[in-house]
């Protein structure tokens, strides 16, 4: 559709400008605050990397932990979610529909509630409770619906049903057509889902805060800690590190979204 620049009342532009300022200023402020000697004096106090180094020394392990956790979350949701998405996409039974509804409950319900439930059920299993696996489980429960939904909607496309029937008519067994035909055909959606899961896991706080122990801290947990107890410069530098990690992933996610839209329509 060709877009003619249409007349907009100036009031709308004003609101847009003010809100844009509101949204972008803190990001810029926090980047600046993490890189100056003294926040109170602002840029005139000179630029430095000492806060970044301080943060890395004190909280560096949380960055690694979050990255590993997010990676593990992607791996687990892939292994569990892609076959499940296939089953739900092909099943004609009502149970499949009900299960899919159930699966999205951890997203509809506040993370706090899911965390409490997990603590209630497994809090007494000390080894599990104090390990990273406990947090991983929470993340997977929260991100699995996204993987299943995103891959599932790609698998439901009519062309894919025909592709699978064609492969079957040529004699392909289930593993052959699942790995050789279906996965390659929905690869963009799988990649997009992985990026989404990664982003969600990196930024997850509500659930993680309830489940963590001093020995199993993630990046957002560390952030909360630093905001409460450290100087603004340190908090800002830590936030900057988070931004550096998350930005490429978000952009890749958006690029993937555009790619899928272009090639497969909505």
């Amino acid at each position, binding site marked *: 559709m060709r877009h003619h620049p249409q007349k907009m009342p100036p009031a709308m532009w004003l609101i847009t400008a003010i809100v844009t300022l509101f949204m972008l200023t803190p990001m810029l402020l926090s980047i600046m605050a993490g890189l100056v000697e003294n926040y109170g004096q602002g840029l005139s106090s000179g630029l430095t990397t000492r806060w970044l180094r301080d943060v890395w020394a004190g909280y560096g392990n949380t960055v690694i932990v979050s990255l590993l956790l997010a990676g593990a979350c992607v791996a687990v949701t892939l292994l569990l979610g892609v076959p499940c998405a296939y089953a739900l996409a092909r099943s004609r039974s009502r149970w499949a529909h009900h299960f899919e509804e159930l699966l999205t409950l951890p997203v509809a319900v506040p993370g706090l509630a899911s965390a409490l439930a997990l603590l209630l059920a497994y809090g007494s299993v000390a080894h599990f409770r104090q390990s990273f696996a406990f947090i991983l489980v929470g993340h997977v429960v929260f991100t699995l619906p996204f993987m299943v939904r995103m891959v599932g909607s790609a698998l439901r496309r009519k*062309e894919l049903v*025909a*592709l699978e029937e*064609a492969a*079957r*008519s*040529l*004699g*392909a067994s289930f593993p052959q057509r699942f790995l050789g035909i279906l996965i390659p055909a929905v690869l963009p959606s799988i990649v997009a889902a992985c990026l989404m899961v990664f982003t969600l896991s990196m930024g997850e706080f509500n659930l993680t805060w309830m489940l963590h122990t001093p020995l199993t801290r993630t990046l957002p947990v560390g952030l909360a800690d630093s905001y409460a107890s450290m100087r603004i410069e340190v908090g800002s530098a830590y936030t900057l590190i988070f931004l550096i990690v998350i930005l490429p992933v978000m952009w890749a996610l958006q690029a993937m979204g555009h790619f899928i839209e272009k090639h497969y329509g909505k």
Partner: protein
Amino acid sequence: MENKSVGVDIRQCAKTYADGTRGLHPTDLTIEPGEVLALLGPSGCGKTTLLRIIAGLETPDAGSRILFGTSDVTHVPIERRQVGMVFQHYALFPQMTVQANIGYGLRIRGASAHEQRRVVGELVDLVRLNGLEHKRPGELSGGQRQRVALARAVASRPRVLLLDEPLTALDAKLKEQLRDELAELLRQLRITAVHVTHDQREALAIADRMAVMQAGKILQVGHGESLYRQPAHPFVATFLGRVNQVERSADHAARNQLVLGGVTQTCPDHCAGATQLLVRPEDVEILGIDYPSSVPATIARRVFLGDHLQLTITVAGHPALLADVSRDHGAQVGDRVGLFIAPHQWMPNRVDL
């Protein structure tokens, strides 16, 4: 190419869906080895359902049986039924080349690389895709994709070839050209084929025999020409070609006579008792007003359709009739003409005969 075609025997196959709708009523059908049979009908008539049952993509209701030659394949899944299938939108594997697509069935079944190359090469020649072996489906035209789909389906020497509206996705001009190519190819392959379509010209051009279907039932099976000339069911008459409908009173029906514009005509025996008669536009002759025993009529409309003229004729006391005449016929709008229909061209419009 080696031919493994078998005959197909369908006995009392029915399909009822989960929500209770009847996709197919118990149906019997026999297809000879090497024959091309068309399943023809409007959307929703059950033709695709029947095709998918033959393929093994749908399970028929209990009591149904399907035989390929002498073996009962009713409970054999599609992976092992040795059928070839051409889908409506071709379903070519997008990330594989033409070569890889065609050879897929062979590869799955563990054929040697040499064997794959040989068969793929043969088929590329047969469907005339030379030079395009390394292209991906996205780079091909609609007609080329259709040929790849066909080659892929026959590469593993299936017992039966099934085509699901293979020409529907193409535009009109291309459709005609490919229709003839497809007909020729099927004749060359001498493979048992079932071809689903809603286009009667396609069915007439490609198939040896055809089965006209409506609402889950087969109404009539036979050669195209006999279905056209002697439809056993009014739906068959109206679906294959076009017809004019003419009413007559019960009284006239009993005496098997038709009064058209004041002229009485005796109808052939097979029309006896029918209160509605059908006649094809091409059997309505438009002659001079003085032609003996012709019905006086007026030309209401004249449409030039390129290879023929379509005239709309008004006759006193009846709804307008359509007549197809030659391109060079001199009739103009408003002319008073004589309408003549040879008695044997009338067909009765009732189900039981």
